[in-house]
């Protein structure tokens, strides 16, 4: 998929994923500002070099429970939690959105 980069998004990282941001202090916000216009979460994760196996099912797009195949657009906020930080009761949300990284193949 062709990804143009005339916009930007804000990727909030937690736990061991904070190492991909400049400020990795666990007590602050570890935010990556990424040039981006449109693409999936999976595309983004691949571009950033975040290993899929380190992701859990707690992926939030603009505060909404999302998944690896959700579309991320210019000015979006994406929150990524690692596989050892997925405590939210996923049954509160649409089960189609709950994907484990491992099941994505």
């Amino acid at each position, binding site marked *: 998929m062709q990804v143009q980069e005339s916009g930007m998004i804000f990727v*909030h990282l*937690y*736990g061991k994923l904070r190492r991909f941001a400049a400020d990795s*202090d*666990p*007590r*602050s*916000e570890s935010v990556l500002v990424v040039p981006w216009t449109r693409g999936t979460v999976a595309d983004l994760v691949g571009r950033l070099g975040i290993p899929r196996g380190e992701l*859990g099912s*707690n992926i*939030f797009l*603009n*505060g*909404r*429970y999302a998944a690896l195949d959700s579309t991320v657009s210019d000015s979006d906020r994406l*929150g990524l*939690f690692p*596989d*050892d*930080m*997925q*405590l*939210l*009761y*996923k*049954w*509160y*949300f*649409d*089960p189609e959105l709950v994907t484990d990284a491992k099941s994505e193949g």
Partner: protein
Amino acid sequence: MDRILRINMTDRTAAFEPVPEKYQHRAGRWLTSSIVHDEVPATCHPLGPNNKIVFSPGIVTGTASPTSSRISVGGKSPLTGGIKEANAGTGWGRRLASLGIRAIVVEGQPKDGGFWLLKVTKDGASFEPADDWTGKRLSEIYPDIFAKHGGKDAVDVCSVGAAGEQRMASAGICFNDQEGRPSRYAGRGGLGAVLGSKGVKFIVVDNTGAESVPITDQAVFDGGRKKMASALTEHAITKPEGALNSYGTAVLVNIINEAGALPTNNFRKGRFEGAAKIAGEAIFEGNKERTGETHYNHACSPGCIIRCSNTWHRPDGSVHTSCLEYESAWALGANCGIDDLDQVAELNQLCNDYGLDTIEIGGALAVAMEGGVAEFGDGARAIELLHEIGKATPLGKILGAGALVTGKTFGVARVPHVKGQNMPAYEPRAIKGIGMTYAVSTMGADHTSGYTIAPEILGVSGKLDPLNPDKAELARNFQYATAFIDTTGHCLFIAFAILDIASGFEGMVEECNGVLGTDWTADDVGRIGKEILELELDFNRRAGFTKLDDRLPEFMTLEPLPPHDVVWDVPDREIDRVFG
């Protein structure tokens, strides 16, 4: 377990009686709700002579089953006026179970005032005057109580703090953890006030001479126990060095904040700028800096293999408080706009020491801030107010009566309660499934009464999805499963694993069959859960509750919550279909 210990505080007598046939397989929440339903007049005054307090360990409590050292405590709540089951993790219930005591029922009321220490042994209960222990911080007196009664290897200690002595509706019932600290609470609903109104300061359980909990079919039990242990050690949330063991429940602070559902400044918005400073990661990191060691969490009670309980340390490396749960970090932190972890820890410790439910107190403080008693974010002032509560000054008594009374006193309309109980740490406008649980729970706004609502029902987007009967049934079934777990004696956190790993769920049922000699299947989980809910719903109806009490506060229907800018817009008829 074969007997009930009935303690009468009017005459100060105690006697064993056999478990009646109708309660044959009941324990934990099933038994506390049964006895409250059958014996407590639903219209009684919760602080009067006709209310009762019932303690019951679960079906598998005291056996080798992992993560099953929970105690259920039931009664009519002075906070909501309805039935309540509160639940704590502690070794106290295991000792009762080993003595063959399936429940302790405390009834009556002293005519002459005064407080008592009840000593429970295999022979019954004796009464010692306890007035000298009143008005003190629990962490200062627990060591002395242990010393007088043989130490923490010999006894476990249940108590009320100053708040319970003063019959405050936010008073919880305290139990010791494995270090002997007064830190494990059957917190919600003001049951500490009920125990205090009966003149009970301590219940000390000494199980010298006890035998092990009898198991009817050892092979079936062992099979179930292994499946349970397997599920718990396999699941990403419950396994060693998984989410709970590493960060504790406080890991939720950052997650719920990212979801825009972390109630901030008395439920004014769903994101808190200071969230990361009071989250599980901050606790983990701060501990490392202050002690030079990496701290994984510990077990609150014997036999727990999840080990989610944390400890927060002071700059000098000494222990400040244990345990700082998600709900407490939120209530005393984000909900009050406070982002200083040391101040939040101090507020938590003061709640533990004065005998208070951290959620209700956090709610009351936030409402008081809205009412002008303090500024949001003023942690130092919040600490002063906590001391007022502990010392039972007039202002302290208002706050100790909970968020709704505080709101009425200060003319605050925005009180985030259902049935008089302040909401816990999930904003219902942002996560509507949780709002449904708050509305229909028999316990008031409660997040533990039913872990889940069917995800198809409501999404974060605010769009209404029509409920069809299948979805309402799914919602009910999860509430039933929760009630069943509360009956087994297991910690509710097993749900993460066993609702994902089918063999874990089977294991839970097989453990019970092994202990009781029953032939339950997964269907019986729903059947029993339904019976429990129906007892509780019936009690509440007779206490005067109607559908109008299954509603969220008006302000949530009017004020859009940032960042999602959604209001609570679930039609009443949809709420009424869950138990309708």
